């Protein structure tokens, strides 16, 4: 998956990312729950800019994975994304305590004793070429570039050097 970059000052809280994420999930999973908008895997906290965009960065040595006592959070086999198996989540809040981006979101679940709350988080849109939130973000507050390990350095380096050269000539 591409690396996700977040630039909070650019966010206008337009909410397109939330709709894209939730609608995309609803379409992909076929679960057209009336509360689909609540199913977005990221959150944008307002009420006014500057926003706090709560989105998983899919860290390579993810503290949430270290802390997950139930092994519900793991780096997936390809090593690209931090994936969540919500059926294993026991709602212990360890990941919430660890994540410096407050990306884990609490979701109430009914039934099952002791699992009143489980965690939801970005799955990196693994089945899509580009994460939906980044694809629809009009201001560049959420960007996806490169791959997880080389991130966006390559393009940035080229652009920066290109600008320098332009000034040079």
């Amino acid at each position: 998956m591409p690396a996700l970059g977040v630039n909070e000052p650019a966010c206008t809280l337009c909410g397109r990312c939330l709709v894209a994420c939730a609608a995309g999930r609803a379409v992909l999973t076929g679960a057209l729950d009336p509360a689909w908008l609540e199913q977005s895997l990221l959150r944008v906290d307002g009420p006014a800019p500057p926003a706090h965009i709560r989105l998983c960065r899919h860290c390579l040595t993810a503290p949430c994975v270290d802390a997950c006592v139930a092994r519900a959070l793991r780096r997936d086999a390809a090593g690209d994304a931090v994936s969540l198996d919500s059926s294993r989540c026991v709602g212990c809040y360890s990941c919430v305590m660890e994540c410096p981006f407050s990306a884990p979101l609490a979701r109430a679940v009914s039934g099952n004793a002791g699992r009143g709350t489980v965690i939801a988080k970005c799955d990196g849109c693994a089945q899509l070429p580009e994460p939906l939130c980044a694809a629809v973000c009009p201001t560049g507050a959420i960007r996806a570039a490169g791959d997880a390990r080389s991130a966006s350095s390559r393009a940035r380096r080229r652009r920066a050097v290109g600008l320098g050269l332009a000034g040079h000539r």
Partner: protein
Amino acid sequence: MEQRFVNVDAKLCTGCAMCELACSYHHEGCYSPRLSRVRLVRFEDRGFSVPATCAYCERPICEEACPTAAFAHDPATGAARVHEARCIGCKECVNACPLGVIDLHPVHGTPMRCDLCDGDPACVKLCPTGALALQLVSDAVRDKRRAVQTARIRLAEAGGLES
């Protein structure tokens, strides 16, 4: 303390990649541009190459963006260090760096950033054309100032400069 950094004179660069080889050997014991802290940007259609490396910003945005304080500096030389055990591989530094000169190590997943090789950068030593130099900012500016004015005088003497 005034910070030294590896200054790049793009006009002298031939694109030979010796800087990348020197850097990867110094830090990793092998030859691999991917593992180098200095990276060449090539514009091959025009035969142009420019090395890009950490500019040692006065206000390093990469460090500000790091949620775990994984960057540190050598108190004596100011050289950047990466506290790898603190790094969680979130890529915030990569995204923050406007020059694109922080990449993540493909095995360790931690940022690779120029550390000036304990004050004697391997890339500078192996650069065959002098395109790279370890300099103080003030020295780099002084040299540039003189070079530009020398060129002006030459041009004026050749009758090419009006005023």
